[in-house]
């Protein structure tokens, strides 16, 4: 054989060691045998009786979910009004451990005589639960009087105990519903994602959208556990708190209740979104998306009818239009094209292009229309009147890649990383993408459409607001955020404070930026938002946009910052009305109303109405004047009486 067989003698020098080891292992097994016999035979008998008499029950101790406050929260004061709070109700539970089904039937039967519950229904619920051993909630919102009665009869009610249940409460109803979100019962998917976190179990409530979802772990806290020793008659012998419950953190948001309230009021009955940001920190002072919903319908007994009506609504009230939907930005994107044109030296301050009302490439029949016939346009007037022909020329000179370069610097095409769930990244088209999807090359026509914010480009409302922040804040864009700080609910200590984080530093020189700002200011004084701009009680700079889209009326945009002439306390306001119509006519009046309300305490709703009426009147006058110029009207315009 190839392998030599070793004779036992050759093993010998380690054989002794091997035998020794065998004795050693045998000894260990003998010790184990003795210990098992001791525990089970000698001590087993003793414990058997003890175990039968006294039972140990472990009961979870619920904890408060953290409250949510707006930025006016004062940690030293005790009377802060929360945006989200908890409501305490008493619940009656059965702990099924140690009990037979017969015991439980008996208990439920007795309970059905004390409180208003249906015996058969509860028994059915009990037996159909996924986990037999978890505590079973028999009834919530039980008055103290009933609790006292149960306490008296506890001997007939094995396994019964009572404990507070904390329900989430949104005292302001619709207020900031997309941001705050709501909680609901955990689903299977959410549970398996968190299978390693012991704080989540079958009965858990979990944040479903908004801050409640994003900061669920911080808000949740930790459940406690109580050990209760009861005797055979279910009398409580002893209780120990095995683990103290830890309440969740109280969160303070960057939201300003006053500003949010203005946004809520002014946007009522609109479909769209509005955002107010502090550009020098990225703090979101207000953010609304309409239509919205009342989160309270999901709490306690969920109002199924209302929820179904809302989920079936074609206007999608649960969609946060500020971050979760993407739209063509339209002319507000001209800010990006203008920055690229100025910085890449494609145009200078004094270069002009002639606008005849359309644009056409050489050797090509396609015609690209402008919003009007503007004549000779330079960068200032181009922005002021939102002249498409001017920006067609600039985009054509630049090429799409350079526009994309600057769009990325302004934060288009990527998530801002705001602390809310479900943010969309928007979309910046590329040559490769078009080839892949349409099987076509990228044409110059695509480039010039891209330069005016139309075509394949898509962005979120937040991205447009963020771009405006870059203009207002000398090219620095900070990450937008909602959470300001977190406090311990027990001690009131500061746990966490959010610091501002620089997202983009746009490489734009000061003199170029001031040209752009000047142009944006002109928009609000003589340009596309001149009528609304007249009403503004504070100097402002902004850009309108009437974005064409395939779903109907154009989207109305207006994104602005104020004050224009001071650099301190600047805020950015971005208003978006879905399928609203003209940016200057529909969105700008809303933004001006918001600014007047924020800075001068004007009533936002009446302000909006007044401005929109005037805008309509002016438009009508303009229309009449044009008719008159063309000889359709005989009377002079001054004689025509216009009633609104």
């Amino acid at each position, binding site marked *: *054989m*190839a*392998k*030599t*067989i*070793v*004779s*036992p003698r*050759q*093993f010998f*020098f*380690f054989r002794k*060691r*091997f035998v020794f*080891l*065998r004795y050693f*292992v045998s000894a*260990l*097994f003998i*010790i*184990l*045998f003795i*210990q*098992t*016999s001791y*525990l*089970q*035979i000698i*001590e*087993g*008998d*003793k*414990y*058997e009786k003890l*175990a039968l008499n006294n039972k*140990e029950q*472990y009961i979870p101790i619920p904890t408060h979910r953290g409250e949510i406050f707006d930025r006016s929260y004062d940690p030293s004061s005790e009377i802060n009004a929360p945006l989200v709070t908890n409501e305490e109700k008493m619940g009656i539970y059965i702990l099924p*451990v*140690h009990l037979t089904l017969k015991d439980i039937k008996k208990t439920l039967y007795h309970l059905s005589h004390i409180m208003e519950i249906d015996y058969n229904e509860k028994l059915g619920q009990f037996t159909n639960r*996924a*986990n*037999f*051993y*978890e505590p079973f909630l028999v009834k919530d919102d039980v008055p103290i009087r009933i609790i006292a009665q149960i306490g008296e009869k506890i001997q007939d009610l094995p396994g019964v105990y009572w404990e507070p249940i904390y329900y989430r409460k949104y005292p302001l109803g619709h207020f900031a519903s997309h941001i705050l979100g709501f909680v609901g019962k955990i689903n*299977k998917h959410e549970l*398996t994602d968190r*299978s*390693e976190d012991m704080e989540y*179990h*079958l009965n858990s409530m979990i944040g479903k959208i908004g801050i409640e979802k994003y900061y669920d772990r911080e808000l949740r806290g930790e459940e406690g556990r109580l*050990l209760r020793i009861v005797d055979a008659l279910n009398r409580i012998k002893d209780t*120990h708190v*095995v683990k103290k419950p830890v309440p969740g953190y109280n969160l303070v948001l960057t939201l300003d209740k006053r500003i949010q309230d203005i946004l809520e009021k002014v946007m009522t009955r609109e479909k769209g979104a509005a955002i107010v940001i502090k550009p020098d920190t990225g703090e979101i002072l207000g953010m609304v998306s309409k239509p919205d919903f009342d989160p309270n319908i999901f709490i306690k007994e969920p109002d199924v009818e209302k929820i179904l009506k809302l989920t079936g609504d074609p206007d999608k009230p649960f969609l946060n239009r500020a971050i979760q939907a993407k739209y063509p930005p339209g002319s507000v994107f001209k800010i990006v094209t203008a920055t690229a044109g100025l910085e890449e030296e494609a145009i200078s301050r004094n270069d002009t292009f002639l606008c005849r009302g359309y644009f056409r490439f050489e050797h090509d029949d396609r015609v690209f229309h402008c919003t009007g016939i503007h004549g000779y346009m330079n960068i200032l007037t181009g922005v002021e009147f939102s002249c498409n022909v001017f920006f067609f020329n600039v985009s054509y000179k630049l090429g799409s890649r350079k526009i994309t370069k600057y769009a990325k610097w302004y934060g288009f095409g990527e998530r801002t990383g705001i602390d809310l769930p479900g943010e969309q990244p928007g979309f910046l088209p590329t040559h490769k993408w078009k080839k892949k999807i349409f099987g076509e090359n990228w044409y110059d026509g695509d480039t010039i459409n891209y330069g005016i914010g139309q075509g394949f480009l898509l962005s979120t409302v937040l991205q447009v607001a963020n771009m405006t922040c870059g203009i207002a804040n000398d090219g620095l864009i900070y990450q937008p955020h909602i959470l300001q700080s977190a406090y311990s609910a027990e001690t009131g200590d500061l746990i966490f404070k959010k610091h501002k984080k620089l997202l983009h530093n746009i490489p734009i020189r000061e003199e170029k930026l001031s040209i752009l700002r000047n142009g944006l200011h002109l928009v609000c004084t003589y340009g596309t938002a001149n009528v609304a701009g007249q009403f503004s009680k504070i100097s402002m700079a902004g850009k309108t946009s009437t974005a064409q889209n395939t779903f109907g009326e154009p989207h109305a945009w207006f994104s602005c910052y104020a004050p224009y002439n001071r650099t301190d306390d600047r805020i950015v306001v971005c208003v978006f009305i879905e399928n609203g119509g003209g940016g200057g006519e529909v969105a700008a009046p809303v933004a001006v109303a918001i600014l007047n309300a924020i800075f001068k305490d004007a009533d936002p709703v009446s302000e909006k109405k007044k401005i929109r009426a005037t805008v309509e009147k002016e438009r009508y006058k303009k229309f009449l004047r044009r008719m008159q110029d063309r000889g359709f009207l005989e009377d002079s315009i001054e004689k025509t009486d216009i009633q609104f």
Partner: protein
Amino acid sequence: MIRPEYKAPDFKLLAAVYLLLAFGISMLYSASIGFSRMAYHNQYYVFIQQLIFIGLGTVFIILLLTINYHLFKRIARLIIMLSVILLVLVLIPGIGKMVSGSRSWIRYKFLGIQPSELAKLALIIYLSYIFTKKRMTTQNFLGGYLPTLIIISTIFFLVLLQPDFGTGFVIIVIAGLLSYISGIRTIYLFSTAFGILPIAYFLITRVGYRKMRLLAFINPWADPMDKGYHIIQSIKSFQIGGLTGVGLGKGVQKLWYLPQPHTDFIFSVIGEETGFLGSLLLLVLFIYIVYRAVRIAMNASDRFGFLLASGISIMLSIQILVNLFVNTGLIPVTGLPLPFISYGGSSLLINMISIGILLNISRLARPAEEGTADD
């Protein structure tokens, strides 16, 4: 090369293992119902998973019955290299998956492995190979012992980094005892042991939870509600069980009281539900399996087979002993699975593969007339 003469494998060992597996899986089902329902909404989840792995293990046993164990001699270096690579990979966040505080899993889609389990067997194969191939390993320090020591420590520290103190302990004991019976000079072993002592002291006292476990072990009743909790609950399970137990599936300790009733503390569940008789059956089966394994080692036809079988015997006994000692409150709490019984695919597969190797060694045993080592 002459075809080796195969004999019949050790059927007694095989029978004992499958008897144990059958007993184990019924107890595992009882112990895991609560956990399966809570984590997977399916009370059979753990049971079915374990059944699948028993099936897979059986395939390995059948394969290994026909694969000459000398193959492992040739691929020993490959196996140890693979094992070290996996142990390094598992430490990289993103590849290694955190499970209850230690990074011990590599998961690729539905496939998950625990490299530290593989490392145990890989080390046994490698040490058997190196101690057979080079006699100087056992007698010369610089040229033989030191390189081997470096490989052992590499694996030991990689496992500690996860951190998995229990498996680290098992690895160091396997390496030490296998070196010991391979005839290594006593002075090497003693000096290594003295070198390890300060490290062990550091590991125990500097890492908070281990120190707490140790203190809790010394006097669990000092803090019965918190740190001494696991020990007390485990001991209590045995006391409740008594002579005949509370009956299959009727135990309550597994519901809220015992930590990890389906893995580390399954013996406590067995003690409670089947009583002393069940515990005794389990103990007898384990002792018999170890006895058969030792017998196979003594009758192995060559030094490699002897060392391999001894190493496997050591691995099985140390895991059984540590787990059962923890369960009965004889040593402090260390998270180690019980071979063939606890839930866990990697551990079960490695143990069944080990049995397959043992059976193959038994098929190539020394002819009986040369005298058996049975005594």
